[in-house]
């Protein structure tokens, strides 16, 4: 290979790299332009902050899901786990299942927001860990284990709440859902900080690189001396942790934990990750992509609602645009490689 060839190749790769990460981003930008043209008030800061707040819940889970999918795994239980952790947080925050309905709490009987947050993330991480162990020890595929988890956690949630919601948290807890720091909603800040941390972990730590390695080829990773099983368990702990964190934020935002929360979230979350360019076969992907994927879905939903598009048409448009966004990304990549 000649020197000229090499340089060219390198240059090619850099441009490719740039555009590859920009594929979904370009698409997102195009969407924003379209919606702004349709209705300029789409760009109103209030609306933009609404969108950031809205994507923060599924976005947080999508961060954890990125780890899981990078290992070629999947977690279908996140929606149910979110409901479960939210219910646990509510029980802790209210000091029991009694008095579940008062919308304004004096905050005297409960254990406070910190205990609630802790309970949510610990339960989430533990539940994820149990699923991870089932995957690695019992050798049951992640799809099956977490599909089981999906129904088990929903059943547990309904059992502890007896079907009803638990509502009414104190102001300090509610701040995590509804508060602002300057003009920025607190959930959006939590999401941003979490995304940056996840990016650093995946890109700049040995652990993160090991996650990619396991997803790239688990057998080769094992032969290279990585503790594959531990890494697999850890990613389910991480996604469980984020489901717990998202549950806490959602409960704080709604001032209520509901047994029916999070139904169908697994598909939204996985979409965000996949649209962001992470391969379901593992080893390829990034946190940045996931954030863009989550934003794309959020902007699409908000923009269509903003224009009061009928819900039937919304379904059709959202489905087509998801496919188009990914098709565009593939097309761009194949062009750039030439």
């Amino acid at each position, binding site marked *: 290979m000649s020197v000229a*060839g090499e340089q060219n190749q390198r240059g090619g790769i850099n441009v490719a790299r740039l555009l590859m990460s920009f594929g979904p981003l370009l698409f997102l930008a195009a969407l924003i332009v379209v919606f702004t043209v349709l209705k300029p008030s789409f760009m109103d800061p209030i609306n933009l902050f609404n969108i950031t707040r809205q994507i923060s819940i599924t976005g947080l889970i999508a961060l954890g899901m990125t780890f899981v999918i990078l290992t070629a795994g999947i977690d279908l239980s996140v929606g149910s786990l979110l409901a479960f952790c939210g219910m646990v947080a509510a029980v802790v925050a209210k000091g029991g299942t009694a008095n579940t309905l008062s919308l304004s709490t004096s905050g005297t009987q409960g254990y406070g927001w910190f205990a609630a947050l802790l309970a949510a993330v610990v339960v989430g991480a533990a539940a994820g860990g149990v699923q991870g162990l089932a995957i690695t020890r019992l050798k049951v595929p992640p799809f099956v284990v977490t599909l089981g988890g999906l129904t088990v956690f929903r059943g547990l949630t309904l059992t502890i709440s007896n079907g009803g919601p638990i509502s009414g948290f104190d102001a300090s807890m509610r701040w995590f859902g509804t508060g602002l720091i300057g003009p920025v909603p607190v959930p959006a800040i939590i999401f941003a900080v979490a995304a940056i941390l996840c990016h650093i972990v995946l890109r700049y730590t040995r652990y993160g690189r090991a996650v990619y390695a396991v997803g790239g080829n688990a057998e*080769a990773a*094992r032969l290279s001396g990585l503790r594959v099983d531990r890494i697999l368990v850890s990613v389910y702990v991480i996604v469980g942790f984020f489901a717990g964190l998202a549950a806490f934020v959602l409960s704080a935002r709604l001032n209520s934990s509901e047994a029916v929360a999070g139904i169908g979230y697994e598909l939204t979350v996985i979409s965000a990750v996949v649209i962001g360019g992470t*391969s379901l076969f593992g080893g390829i992907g990034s946190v940045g992509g996931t954030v863009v994927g989550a934003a794309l879905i959020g902007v699409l939903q908000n923009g269509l609602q903003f224009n009061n598009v009928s819900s039937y048409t919304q379904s059709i448009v959202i489905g087509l645009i998801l496919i188009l966004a990914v098709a565009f990304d593939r097309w761009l990549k194949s062009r750039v490689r030439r």
Partner: protein
Amino acid sequence: MPTAEAASPEPILLAVEGVTKHFAGVTALSDVSLDIRPGEILGLLGENGAGKSTLLKILSGVMPPSSGRIIFDGADYQPASPQDAKRLGIVTIYQELSLIPTLTVAENIFIGRAPTGPLGLVSWRRMEEDSRAIIARVGLTIDPMTPVSALSVAEQQLVEIARALSLKSRLIIMDEPTSALTETEVQRLLSIMDRLRRDKVAIMFVTHRLEEAAAICDRMTVLRDGRLAGHLDRDNGPIELPAIIEKMVGRAASELYARPAQRAIAGDIRLSVRGLRTVRDPEAPHAIVLDGVDIDLKAGEILGVAGLVGSGRTELARAIFGADRIAAGTITLDGRQIAPASPADAIALGIGLVPEDRKHQAIFAALGILPNFSVASLGHFSNGFGFMAERRERDALAGFRKMLSIRMASAEQAIEGLSGGNQQKVILARWLARDPKVLIVDEPTRGVDVGAKTEVHQILVQLAARGIAVMMISSELPEVLAVSDRIVTMRRGRITGQMQGVEANEEKLMELMALDRQDAKGQAR
């Protein structure tokens, strides 16, 4: 530390005592014992399926033995995982490459031990620089930030070797590290091994290229059918190839490369390629691009194609086979111009290809031997209604099993469970079953033992004798010299020379393979 043998200056580093390994009914190893000392290169030889890889996998902690004992450095050694082996300084180069395709070369080299900077964060810059130096040791000049999936098998092999060499090791286990390499790289590796020997590293070396083994090994241990067939020692004079072969196969050695003197081929031109150029494939951006290849292939001849790694031989084969897109040029088969747009088209026209990367391009690992065998001839083995004629299919497989002496338990057995050489024979059988007009074989004996290799050569010769035009790409010059009626050499996507098989020798070929034709310079892309 107590010494095991008074005569030896070095204590035994690793001793295997009576190791046995069973798989689902197969006994892969039976009561095998051997030992190795620091600064020693031990050759581990045997036919395909003799149990070499199994033994090495036990040593590197991939799987436990069914029974027996291993002693490392004077202590009982029972690794639970490759990690345990690594910690003790036992480093392995696996036969089936163990790189992670989605990661870059640099990351593969530093897997699990990436250099970190402040805050314990991975330093990508240092990783790139250090890995550039590490791969340079084995003569590789690719960009370390290239993903491994874009490398050829040979390059991957070199990366794997480079990685192993960069680890602190006391014992290096090499399972067929040279099977994908050409002479130059092999020589470089052998000299590196020699240096390691002087640094008191012990090396266990598996290869089917006996010349290599004879050149570098201090001692050899030979396995046959999972049992110890004997030890050979250089101290008692140089190790002769026939002696090794006799131990391996259990009978007196037949002639290596048993090609009858090259016949003058007078067949018609069957396949003719003119001005063939390929485009850069977006899926394989690093692949060599063919740059105007002219080649003729006559009915009944074996055309050897020689070249260094990256010379474009594989690309030529793929282009003819319709697997890659062609930018310009014509292909003529039996006087008719053809333009296969896919392998299916090429196959329908009577062209077959045995690809070089068996694992990724040829075998269906989880499927049985029968479907692996018949996949390219489904039409042939089915009736007009699309139903498989299993009886016929089985009979055909049984015939090839005998002809190629494939060692297998049953037609249902997953091909995964076969040794590499036997897998290769099944793939050959896949194409023989089609009875093609043109058969292109890319590294047909990669990982195939001497006995089987001779058989494969004989098969190729028989095919040619039946009038089939055979194009054989091989990185093993002795093999090219032994079977080819005519030989062409390639470099950088161009043909650099050709000669009759009888006129050729290694020196001449090496010279042509390294030759940059004047007009090839400066327009390599």
